[in-house]
């Protein structure tokens, strides 16, 4: 068999949960070991895939181009940053005129602000234009994966859930609520009374 490392799965996570995934870790001490963001619903993410609406883009670079895009899903906003090392994604951000539905595959990145807050963003591998049907499909898929993670959150054998509890607390219910709200936006129905 090939000894090539298996490719990291692109997790489906809504912006609200993603932006809370401020804890990162490695599985080994190897310098080249992959970095993971710990999702609050108890999963590790080395890569994410999401679809949303590009609402704003700005070149925030000093010497060279460094593009920031705001990409909105039903629960919040993903921030993507692309510079000279992500030439394809950077040129997409340069060319695109918001609003536009876009699909993004990329890696979670964190940085600490001067005030000590950890911000979570995405370093895109690719950005492509898609249509509304694809966006809706992603919303349902992201909701399904979120529901699956919340369901598995209490399983004793779930090591990433244990890690998430330690880092973020016991309650993953707000992400389930986020998923339900997201589904309701594309169902086009009012929130039901519980």
């Amino acid at each position, binding site marked *: 068999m090939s000894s090539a490392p298996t490719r990291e*799965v692109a997790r489906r996570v809504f912006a609200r949960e993603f932006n809370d995934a401020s804890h990162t870790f490695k599985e080994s001490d190897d310098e080249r070991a992959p970095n993971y963001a710990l999702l609050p619903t108890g999963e590790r993410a080395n890569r994410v*895939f999401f679809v949303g609406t590009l609402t704003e883009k700005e070149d925030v670079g000093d010497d060279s181009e460094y593009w920031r895009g705001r990409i909105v899903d039903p629960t919040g906003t993903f921030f993507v940053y692309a510079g000279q090392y992500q030439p394809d994604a950077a040129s997409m951000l340069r060319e695109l005129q918001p609003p536009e539905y876009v699909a*993004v*595959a990329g890696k979670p990145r964190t940085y600490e602000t001067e005030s000590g807050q950890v911000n979570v963003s995405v370093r895109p*591998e*690719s950005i*492509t234009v898609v249509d509304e049907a694809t966006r809706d499909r992603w919303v349902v*898929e992201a909701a399904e994966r979120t529901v699956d993670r919340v369901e598995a959150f209490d399983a004793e054998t779930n090591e990433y859930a244990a890690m998430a509890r330690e880092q973020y607390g016991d309650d993953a219910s707000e992400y389930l609520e986020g998923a339900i709200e997201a*589904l309701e936006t594309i169902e086009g129905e009012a929130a039901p009374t519980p």
Partner: protein
Amino acid sequence: MADLREHAEEIRDRYDDHLDLEVEAVLDRLQTLVEQYKVPVDEARRSVESTYREEAGIEREDVVSGGSSEEVEVADIDAPEEWVTIEATVVDLWEPRSDSIAQVGLLGDESGTVKFTKWAKSDLPTLAEGQAYRLGNVVTDEYEGQFSVKLNRTTTIEELDREIEVGDDADTFEGALVDVQSGSGLIKRCPEEDCTRVLQNGRCSEHGDVEGEFDLRIKGVLDDGIEAREVIFDQEATEALTGMELEEAKDMAMDALDTEVVAEEMTGDVLGQYYRVEGPVFGRYLLVDDMEELGAPETVEDTLIKARSI
């Protein structure tokens, strides 16, 4: 040593057309190897046969293997250079990449599918897609862990009246296309016999500088958030996926003086889209036979019910 005698008789029968062999003499050679030199029986038999072939001045392919070609199911093929008989349906015929190949494609039985190659020089009847055959005396082969069978001059082809259901070793996968890898788009392949390697800068890793033949392909990754699957769209599947035909791709590359533009153009259209694909799995790749682009979700309601029930 009844076993060895059986082997000796088979060898005698097998070379009957070419050599006048005595069972005892054959047995003697086998015994020497097995008993004196402790060689495994298979190896002893191989050695003895090759000695006789040399004596007779014949090639392996010229030998009718008679009763020794064991009937197997395609999924059981797990070693190269074995003579086997299979009963299978021609599932798919592909475009031969060389004049030396008469037909190439996929055979299937209840257990699964296997690639087959029929050489032009073997001068065999043409196989029809969808027809079931009993193929006597085909030789197994292996390339990078994948097994195939080769039809040869001694292969017997018998049409079967019954239908053979083809086992489903095809896999279906649904997900978003999250990556299009290098080696996609308009590529060139080595034109040498039975070599279809993709050229790097006009060079084949086996045959050096060659005049390549254009082909279309997409190597990509489909991902459903749980698993990432590497998939290959061949020319036909790539054309279906992108709507771009080989000729159009060649024109585009010619205009731009660069083949890369084809991959770029295709990537923009397909990356980030959802697909359901189906096809056989070879090594780490799923080879796409069938695909469907997925649009709006089918099941908002179901997911909502499930989410609310927690």
